[in-house]
């Protein structure tokens, strides 16, 4: 059952005379305000403020309480998060407090020129005097309140229940609240703060724990687990186990009771649309379209080819004509004759002709004679191009020597190219042979071949994935960061590696003494660091090439193979790569053991890392701290233990507390744990009953008092709760 806010504007403000006090229960979770003497607060809302910017006008507006998501589209909420005036359970941000009070008084219907009623407001136990004085100042100066009184909410709750006979005038109140838990003993109806104790754990921590656990268990759905959702889950499903150890044994052994206690939350999931195998006509139609497109492309290519052939033929004809002309002209006139055609010598012309004929032949699609031609060429070329090669060095002039060097270079490069081509041919032959072998193997024994391939694929995939995971470790799951990962993030693996090397290597030596650096080899550490950077980049290539080859092979022969796409890798870190499609099961959130693991932190704050006592021991601490020495007082105290505060609504709290307190008290002492009539509202009700009393003004202080008496007096100010 979730708490409901009540924020309708009240219209009867003016019907109340100015002697009726306004009662405010200023809690870290909810803010309740109403008139004294009534049983229900008029206005209730969550104690948070947001200041988003209005999208249209650009001005910053203030919104108090829970948000209505449908209204949020008018606002730009990027730079404003919900802010609370509380730090633990002490008010420290009075600007936000002012917005909240504005809203509260406005909803109560205030419309005069000041709040003319005395105010009773709750605070935490032993509130620091600075917070108290700032609050008083705010109320006096900004709102013009005539008189103010401060009280502790747990005490009001106890008094209210005492009034109704639930607890006696000596007892202990245990109040697990939103951020803190208090235990305050009462003697003769007055709270003894000397004996009180406070543990910094509360409903907020329980919700936070639940949220973090679920986010880590289901990283895929981590965006679903907002704080509000976690709180809803907590209110609905969490309970306190009477004995934690036996409960987890139930779950560990998988007994039937554990099954009954597990709750499932099914997230909305739409199965991907199953592809209906296309009907015959569909296939035929698609094939026809494809055929037509192919035909069109082929025609275009053909036309282009024909035109190219024509061009080349023309060119060839003109070249041959030119050659004939050159033949007719005499030797000496050749250069002049050819100068306007662009060819320097007859040989050039001839070589151009041969080139054009070759390309013409290729275009026509005739079988290649090139290898043969090429092989002939080197020999002939050798003689033409490298005339100087075979001539020994001493008869050559320096110029000719230079020429010779150039020709040697040319020759070696040409030979190198030849050799490279031969090697490539050989490799291709090899590959062909290997493929053939594999084909034969496949034909012989298709199943085992397939299995082999799949196993290989999985192995290589695993290796590649792990490398990827190591490289890009935190960046994909960065959105479910929870508290504690603050500035210590190191986004790149290189920096993390560097830090790891530094800390481990430097720590490994010497017990307590840091002797790093005394030996020269130590500094080789820094070489390791940058070397790690380079190493990572080279190796994966071979693995990835292997992976590509295997996956293409598998795709050819295995009809059920689904290639693992890279994008999914980041989300399933920590799991075996799923080669099956997502099912409904994956969208089911199982909340079994978390149901009672989360509230367990109220009794064992160590689970969260807070080094303080839990609820059950706090009662013992209170008794111990009380300055007394009568045994009967202790018995009276333990026979009237009141549970109040929002967290006490968890089922199973009473029995657990009783067990816990019985463990720390001497055997046979009377223990009686009761829950308040309404743990959430009783604090306000008690305060309202207190304020309705005629003696109230005697307990409040006015602005003049505050000005005259100063801070020290305020520190010692306490109201007297006994008004019966």
């Amino acid at each position, binding site marked *: 059952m979730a708490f409901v806010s009540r924020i309708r504007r009240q219209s009867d403000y003016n019907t109340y005379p100015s002697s009726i006090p306004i009662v405010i229960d200023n809690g870290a979770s909810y803010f309740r305000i109403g008139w004294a003497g009534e049983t229900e607060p008029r206005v209730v809302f969550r104690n948070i403020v947001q200041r988003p910017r209005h999208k249209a006008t650009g001005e910053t*507006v*203030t*919104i*108090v*309480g829970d948000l209505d998501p449908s*209204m949020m589209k008018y606002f730009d909420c990027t730079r404003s998060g919900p802010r609370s005036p509380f730090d*633990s359970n002490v008010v*420290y*941000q009075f*600007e936000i407090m*002012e917005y909240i009070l504005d809203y509260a*008084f*406005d909803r109560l219907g*205030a*419309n*005069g020129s*000041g709040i003319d009623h005395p105010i009773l407001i709750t605070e935490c*136990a*032993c509130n*620091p*005097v*600075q917070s108290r004085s700032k609050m008083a100042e705010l109320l006096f*100066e*900004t709102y013009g309140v005539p008189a103010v009184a401060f009280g502790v909410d747990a005490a009001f709750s106890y008094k209210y229940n005492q009034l109704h006979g639930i607890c006696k005038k000596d007892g202990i109140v245990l109040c697990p609240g939103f951020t803190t838990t208090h*235990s305050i003993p009462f003697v003769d109806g007055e709270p003894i*703060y*000397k004996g*009180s*104790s*406070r*543990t910094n754990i509360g409903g907020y921590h329980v919700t936070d*724990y639940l949220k*973090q656990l679920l986010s880590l268990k289901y990283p895929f759905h981590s965006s679903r687990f907002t704080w509000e959702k976690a709180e809803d889950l907590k209110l609905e499903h969490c309970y306190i186990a009477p004995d934690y150890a036996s409960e*987890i044994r139930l779950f560990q052994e998988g007994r039937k009771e554990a099954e009954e206690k597990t709750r499932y939350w099914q997230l909305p999931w739409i199965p991907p649309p199953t592809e209906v195998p296309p009907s015959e006509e569909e296939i035929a139609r698609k094939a026809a379209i494809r055929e037509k497109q192919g035909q069109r492309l082929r025609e275009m290519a053909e036309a282009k080819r024909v035109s190219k052939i024509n061009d080349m033929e023309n060119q060839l004809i003109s070249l041959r004509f030119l050659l004939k002309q050159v033949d007719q002209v005499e030797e000496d006139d050749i250069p002049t004759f050819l100068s306007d055609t662009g060819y320097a010598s007859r040989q050039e012309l001839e070589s151009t002709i041969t080139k054009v004929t070759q390309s013409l032949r290729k275009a026509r699609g005739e079988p290649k004679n090139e290898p043969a031609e090429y092989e002939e060429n080197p020999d002939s070329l050798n003689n033409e191009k490298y005339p100087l090669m075979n001539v020994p060095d001493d008869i050559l002039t320096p110029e000719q020597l230079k020429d010779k060097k150039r020709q040697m270079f040319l020759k070696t490069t040409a030979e190198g190219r030849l050799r490279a081509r031969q090697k490539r041919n050989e490799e291709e032959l090899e590959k062909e042979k290997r493929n053939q072998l594999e084909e034969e193997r496949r034909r012989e024994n298709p199943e085992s071949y397939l299995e082999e391939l799949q196993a290989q694929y999985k192995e290589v995939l695993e290796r590649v994935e792990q490398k990827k995971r190591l490289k890009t*470790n*935190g960046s994909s*799951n*960065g959105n479910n960061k*929870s508290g*504690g*990962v*603050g500035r*210590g993030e190191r986004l790149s693996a290189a920096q993390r590696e560097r*830090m790891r090397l530094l800390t481990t290597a430097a720590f490994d030596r010497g017990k307590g003494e840091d002797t790093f650096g005394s030996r020269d080899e130590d500094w080789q550490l820094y070489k390791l660091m940058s070397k790690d950077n380079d190493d990572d980049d080279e190796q994966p290539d071979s693995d990835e090439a292997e992976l590509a080859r295997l996956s293409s092979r598998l795709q050819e022969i295995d009809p059920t193979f689904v290639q693992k796409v890279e994008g999914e890798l980041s989300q399933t*870190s*920590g799991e075996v790569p799923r080669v099956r499609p997502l099912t409904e099961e994956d969208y089911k959130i199982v909340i079994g*053991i978390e149901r009672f*693991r989360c509230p367990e932190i109220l009794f*064992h704050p*160590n*689970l*969260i*890392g807070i*080094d*303080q*006592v*839990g609820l059950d*021991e*706090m009662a013992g*601490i209170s008794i111990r701290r009380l300055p007394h020495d009568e045994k009967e007082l202790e018995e009276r105290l333990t026979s009237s233990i009141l549970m109040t505060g929002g967290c006490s609504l968890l089922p199973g709290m009473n029995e657990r507390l009783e067990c816990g307190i019985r463990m720390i008290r001497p055997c046979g002492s009377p223990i009686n744990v009761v829950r308040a009539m309404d743990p959430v509202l009783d604090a306000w009700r008690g305060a309202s009953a207190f304020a309705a009393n005629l003696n109230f003004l005697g307990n409040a202080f006015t602005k003049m008092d505050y000005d005259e008496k100063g801070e020290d007096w305020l520190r010692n100010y306490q109201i007297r709760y006994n008004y019966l």
Partner: protein
Amino acid sequence: MERELMEADIVVASRLSFKKKQAYEKYPKAQSSSRRWKHLKQILQAENFPDLPPDLPTYVNIESPPSTQPCKRLCDITGYEAPYVDPRTNLRYANAHVFQTVRSLSSDQVHQYLSIRNAAVVLK
């Protein structure tokens, strides 16, 4: 302001009749609020606790002490009883099956599990 917003009436008006000094006058936008207000730690430091009589209950005085009962060791991942600790990551685990999961976690997740328990080492 859109009509829908006006009807919903969720925004606090900037000018309220019962206030002597309005909020926008008090808090000009320039200063950031976090620097203006002291946090709880600073408030507590400012209080002169040594000067006060020692038996007066104050905010710091009434804080509860550490627990005297032995600490429960629970598995970080499943919540069962965990007698074992993984030396590499310092996570607690319950049995061999959980151990495999522990070893396959990314270091970011390990860090988060440890920070729930307040046991994470943050290197800066």
